[in-house]
């Protein structure tokens, strides 16, 4: 029995039934939908290194959370999803980047030009080489983001809780158990610093960021993952009894970071740990692989996590 990439996607849609919504994110980003699938790999974001491993393992279809080309729909700066606010203020950095790529000329004064920068980026050597590798190896990349996120329970949260070894100690004070950002976990009592070190070791991350007093006693944690917007952090901080808040990445530091610093400065005995995107999202892609296996039996399905590439200099 053979199966095409489109048939895999059709089964995903069938499995989700009326829950499926067409979104700008969930689509083929590379390869032909009609190509025959030899094997499927799931991952947080297909890096070149991960793609090489997938090729070596005979997996030609990648089902991914983030794009291999490092882009997402642009969110207006300073807003939360769903808020239609002032238009994104093009940043001068983009202009500088475009100028630099054209040979280092000084950028023109005035408002930046994102479109110009992105046009220049099309010729960027890393961008070009990655497209070439994907094409040369006939890889198919399908992004499954919005529809996967819409599932309840939140599989990304469950995957992360399992990776932390916390899934058995979950409690929802209200709302739907395992809904995104909802509920909290009894965690081994420790100081904030001890907890951070233990989590770093457990998840194998290269660098995690912590805020709060290192000696703060922690025993109950709320758990976010991926991009943390203001509404996410408000919910996580408001979970009853939490003294530890875990997030993926603050979107933006001058908003989310400062909200937490203010929470701390208001006198609350609480710590925050920002684990990062890959560290908080890859375990959920393991859940996705297990889920795909329940309705794709023709080819092997394997979770191929990327790992955290960062380190701290101290």
């Amino acid at each position, binding site marked *: 029995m053979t199966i095409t990439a489109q048939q895999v996607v059709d089964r995903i849609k069938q499995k989700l039934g009326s829950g499926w919504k067409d979104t700008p994110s969930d689509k083929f980003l590379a390869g032909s939908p009609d190509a025959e699938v030899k094997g499927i790999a799931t991952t947080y*974001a297909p*890096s*070149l*290194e991960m793609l090489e491993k997938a090729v070596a393992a005979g997996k030609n279809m990648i089902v991914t959370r*983030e794009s291999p080309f*490092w*882009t997402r729909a642009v969110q207006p700066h*300073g*807003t*939360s999803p769903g808020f239609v606010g*002032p238009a994104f203020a093009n940043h*001068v*950095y*983009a202009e*500088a*980047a475009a100028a*630099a*790529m054209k040979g*280092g*000329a000084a*950028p023109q004064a005035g408002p930046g030009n*994102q479109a110009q*920068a992105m046009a*220049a*980026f099309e010729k*960027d*050597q*890393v961008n070009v*080489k*990655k497209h070439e590798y994907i094409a040369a190896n006939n890889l198919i990349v399908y992004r499954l983001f919005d529809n996967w996120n819409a599932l309840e329970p939140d599989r990304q949260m469950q995957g992360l809780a399992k990776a932390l070894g916390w899934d058995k100690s979950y409690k929802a004070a209200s709302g739907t158990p395992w809904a995104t950002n909802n509920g909290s976990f009894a965690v081994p009592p420790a100081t904030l*610093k001890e907890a951070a*070190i233990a989590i770093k070791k457990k998840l194998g991350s*290269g*660098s*995690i*960021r*912590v*805020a709060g007093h290192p000696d703060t006693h922690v025993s109950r944690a709320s758990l976010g993952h991926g991009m943390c917007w*203001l509404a996410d952090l*408000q919910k996580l*901080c408001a979970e009853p009894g939490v003294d530890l808040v875990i997030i993926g*990445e603050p979107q*933006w530091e*001058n*908003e989310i*970071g*400062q*909200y937490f*610093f*203010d929470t701390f400065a*208001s006198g609350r005995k609480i710590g925050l740990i*920002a684990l990062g*995107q*890959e560290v908080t999202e890859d375990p959920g892609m393991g859940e996705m692989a297990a889920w795909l296996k329940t309705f794709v039996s023709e080819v092997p399905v394997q979770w191929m996590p990327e790992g955290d*590439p*960062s*380190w*701290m*200099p*101290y």
Partner: protein
Amino acid sequence: MTHLSRREFVAMAGATLAATQLAPAQAPKLTAGEVVDRIKKNLGIPWNATTFRDTYKIGSPESPVTGIVSTFGSNLSIMQKAVKAGLNMIVTHEPTFWSDADIIDMVKDDPLYHFKLDYATKNKLVVWRIHDHVHSHKPDLIWAGWNKGLGWEKYLTGNDRGYVIPPTTLKDLALFLDKTLPAGTKSIRCIGDPNLPVTRVATGRDLTSMGMDADCIISSDSREYNCYEYARDSVHMGIKRGYIYIAHEAAEDVGTQEVANWLRPLVPEVEVRYMPTTDEFWGV
């Protein structure tokens, strides 16, 4: 303005009048509106009245000013320090209520919003943001402060985000930033070979800046799904380029020192103090 603070304002105006009678040469009390007017007049560029950033966040033009704090973020901890220092006007670079446009709808039911607002009101603080106009100023005061703070003015290349610095390594450059920035920064994350030789440095932020032709890109408040992942691929391809990711504070706090230096001669009546907004993240 509440009834209470209006009464206090009237009382204060009376006190000013009394002082004027005693010492006729003394200037009338400085208001936030006067400070803002002087800033607008001296910027050297037209004021963009449509900015949603550069506005009052707490207080009003009538609020009396006892002293000015220039800082990156009008955090509660900065407010506490400002109150202690007797400086009641906070000129901030970044938002007060945790969204770029300070959208109160997003926080109006949050106890932290009321805690912060009550604290500021009780202590008669004025918070006014200047972000767009210090970036548009010639030169960009925030980047001028960064160049000065790091001692990198002499290393600038033609591109005003590029430098040729004395030879170092990726790791040592990261440590240099922590040591040299006035508030330090303990949350630096890097991608690339720690021993990578570095002389050509560029500063960036977005995905498109990650591909700049330099030995090292120093990038602030960058998103991981694009900037990190691009860096990972670039390093894996063998490109000799390292990446240093620093907090938003680490990149811009030092620039608010320059804003303070620029502002000081405009308001000789009161103290203008640079108050560092520390990057409160630390790493393990």
